[in-house]
């Protein structure tokens, strides 16, 4: 009797384990599309634990950079019913995928929920995602403080905060660039960090005004009004818009440099 029972258990394990084995092998072989399909088959067949297959399906989708689809797979898991062993992984993956999907605010929301509901399960990896999400969300000072927290709680010595001094970074205000441009053409570009362009803008505006005055004084009223004033109008408004654009570009460059510093710090330590 026991022998027959053992045979049955063996056969059951063989057949039910086969599909999982196939999915895992495909994943390991880098056939993420195939693995994704096989994990979904396990879900379809109702083989427990379904939440694990969905998590692994999300891994496969993440490997294919299908972040939105991966998030959709995770959303099918009931976080409150998933086994405790999976909770931290599910929160981490959801936060990471939101970050990768350029939704840092949602990533931060998930991290907050994770920390509130399962403080004991909150991990170093979750904190790292939080640092990156805060940085992506342009909450630079918070990102810097989060990095310090992380280094204190989880990291070994020798970490230098790549965001140190971030509060001294002078972010360019769009409104200021525009107002300055209106007050003195060219000064908005100068403020936005492009003094050369500021000089060119001032020259163009000044040239148009001088041309208009010259034409008026020689009795060419139409040419003065339409060519001179018309050109001044275009340079004046166009210059202000351009100053705003330059301020935005300058901020983007600074953000990129800070993000690069953050990435480099983690990459170098990893190596």
């Amino acid at each position, binding site marked *: 009797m026991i022998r027959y029972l053992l045979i049955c258990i063996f056969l059951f394990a063989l057949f039910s384990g086969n599909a999982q084995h196939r999915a895992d092998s495909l994943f390991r072989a880098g056939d993420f599309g195939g693995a994704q399909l096989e994990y979904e088959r396990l879900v379809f067949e109702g083989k427990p634990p379904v939440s694990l297959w969905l998590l692994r399906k999300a891994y496969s989708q993440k490997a294919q950079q299908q972040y939105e689809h991966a998030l959709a797979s995770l959303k099918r898991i009931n976080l409150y019913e998933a086994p405790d062993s999976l909770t931290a992984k599910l929160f981490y993956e959801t936060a990471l995928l939101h970050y990768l999907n350029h939704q840092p605010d949602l990533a931060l929301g998930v991290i907050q929920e994770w920390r509130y509901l399962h403080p004991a399960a909150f991990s170093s990896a979750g904190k790292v995602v939080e640092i990156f999400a805060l940085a992506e969300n342009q909450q630079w000072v918070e990102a810097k403080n989060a990095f310090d927290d992380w280094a204190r709680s989880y990291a070994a010595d020798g970490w230098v905060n790549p965001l140190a001094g971030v509060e001294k970074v002078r972010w360019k205000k769009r409104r200021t660039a525009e107002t300055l441009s209106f007050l003195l053409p060219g000064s908005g570009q100068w403020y936005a960090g492009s003094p050369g362009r500021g000089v060119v803008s001032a020259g163009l505006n000044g040239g148009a005004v001088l041309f208009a005055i010259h034409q008026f004084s020689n009795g060419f009223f139409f040419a003065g009004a*339409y060519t001179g004033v018309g050109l001044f109008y275009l340079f004046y408004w166009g210059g202000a818009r351009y100053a705003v654009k330059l301020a935005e570009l300058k901020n983007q460059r600074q953000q990129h440099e800070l993000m690069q510093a953050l990435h480099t710090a983690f990459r170098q330590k990893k190596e």
Partner: protein
Amino acid sequence: MKLLFFLLLVISLSGRAQTSDANAFLRYLMAKRFFDEAILEANRLTKHQPENDTTLFLLGLAHYEKKDLKWSLAAWDNIPPASPLFLQTQFLKGFSQTFLGHPNEGWEIFQRIVPHDSLSAALRTLEMAGVELLRHDFPAFHQQADGFGRISVLKKQEDNLMAYAGLLQKKRRKPWKAGVLQLALPGAGYYYAGYKGHAIYNLLLSTLLGLQAWEGYRKRGPESVRFIGYASAFAVLHIASVWGSTLAVKMRREEREKTIHDQILIDMHIPIRTVFR
């Protein structure tokens, strides 16, 4: 003991027995709208059973949902006429060809359809009428439209097609007329083409250049650089705008026709989905 062993074996393998219908998982994927996975699964199934018409149909449908209509057609081409899915496939194929910009091929497919009942006959008429409209063959459209009104479920789409036919047959604006109007009065050609804002802008710009040319002529004479410069700028702008106004009429016409054609395709598509839901 052997009986017990057999029972336990049956229970242990019941998980696999659930999936004995080869297409069950494929249907599940389609229902969940996991079309990429459905394509993968269908391709895997067709390797083992290349003539399973349900698999081929669902493979085509997954591509169709992803708007990869060329692949849909390739899958549906293999469905045999004896299949119960053949009629639906033919409608979908005809529509796909039409959607891909091959209305003649679409028309051929619709024409070859042998309707099973009055509903499929009315649907075939509607689809063929839609193709005739897309081809701007209005007499042929009206010939098909004579068969409208037999099935109430198609009435809305039939009415829509009649309305589109009226719009497409409306007197169309002529590019040469826009050119002549623009030549006579700057901006008038654009106004005729339906671009009112551009018409005002063009009139204003031409007037400003014209006034400055006139000023140069009056004060410095016809040989002055000032007059020649402004007059040349005016002439270049005017000639370019005449040409531009003719293009504007063509663009406006194409935009309008494209909008109507898109609507026709939608009204051809909806009943296929409704009838074969």
